[in-house]
């Protein structure tokens, strides 16, 4: 019984994202035009809910924006013109994919730059053999004449002794 309930619940949760925000009465008659509207809507942020596109959002303003997109399309705008129309009013912020320009340079260039930096650093650490760390290696001073004499003497007694 419990298992059945869990199953029913998960089925319900899985089916939820399939529900469309775009209502039948909003859709355009021309399927090709409708597809263009859907493509544009997927790239526009819903300004009320912010992390959804207007294509996914159930907010009233998202609906009005969807209708506006369709209205512009039927009036003969191309996809870029429709996008620009919305950007002129809401700024680059409405684009879910931020454009590449001076103000977004850090955003686009930052991650690859950091990845390169990390790779370079990792490579250097990996390549350096353990013994070749100058700061760690004990400083070796050559034996003095007296020490050498003593060493030779010790070695000799060892040989004759065995």
């Amino acid at each position, binding site marked *: 019984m419990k298992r059945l309930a869990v199953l029913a619940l998960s089925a319900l949760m899985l089916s939820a994202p399939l529900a469309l925000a775009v209502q039948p009465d909003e859709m355009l008659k021309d399927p090709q035009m409708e597809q263009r509207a859907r493509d544009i809507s997927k790239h526009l942020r819903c300004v*009320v809910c912010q992390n959804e596109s207007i294509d996914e959002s159930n907010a*009233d303003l998202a609906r009005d924006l969807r209708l506006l997109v369709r209205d512009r399309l039927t009036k003969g705008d191309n996809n870029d013109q429709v996008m620009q129309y919305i950007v*002129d*009013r809401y700024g680059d*912020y409405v684009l879910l994919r931020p454009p590449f320009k001076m103000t977004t340079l850090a955003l686009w260039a930052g991650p690859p730059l950091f990845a390169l930096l990390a790779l370079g650093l990792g490579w250097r650490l990996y390549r350096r053999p353990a013994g070749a760390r100058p700061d760690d290696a004990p400083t070796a001073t050559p034996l003095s004449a007296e020490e050498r004499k003593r060493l030779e003497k010790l070695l000799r007694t060892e040989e004759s002794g065995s």
Partner: protein
Amino acid sequence: MRKLIFIAPTVMFVVLVGLFAAQLLSGRDPKTIPSVLINRPVPDFALEELPGRGMPLRSSDLKGEVSLVNIFGSWCVACAIEHPFLMQLKQQKAIPIHGIDWREKNPMDGLRWLQKNGDPYTRVGLDPDSKVAIDFGVTGAPETFVVDKNGVIRYKHIGPVTAEVWEQTLKPLVEELRK
């Protein structure tokens, strides 16, 4: 050189904490979207009046003196919060306030709401399908725009206009624009 690698995580942590603290303490709401319409003329529009109220709102009405344009709706909870203060501004004759009655299901709803709570507006236009709201880059209600004598948008406030917002931000700007 090697010691540097060991203190680097600590340094990074401190820098991050600093960044987060600065963001948190700045009081900036990351949800507010900067308006691209600042210092641009108000969009061209002509809205219908509320049924029987007269005094509809057109873009040409926004020229001549500094005014506020307030986006509201009878369905909007936060609008009811700022409403008493707008009434106060009207009583003080502080500044003409024009309303855009946004997304009413029934054109009478906004009118009834104003009759019940008081009407702080000089002119009110009805915008049921967000046509003008979208031209103003509205993201929610209430929003309030400061429009100068030449009909140029100079500031946008998102959320209720409170006494604090008026005294600290809007009033100084309005006085500056009147000069």
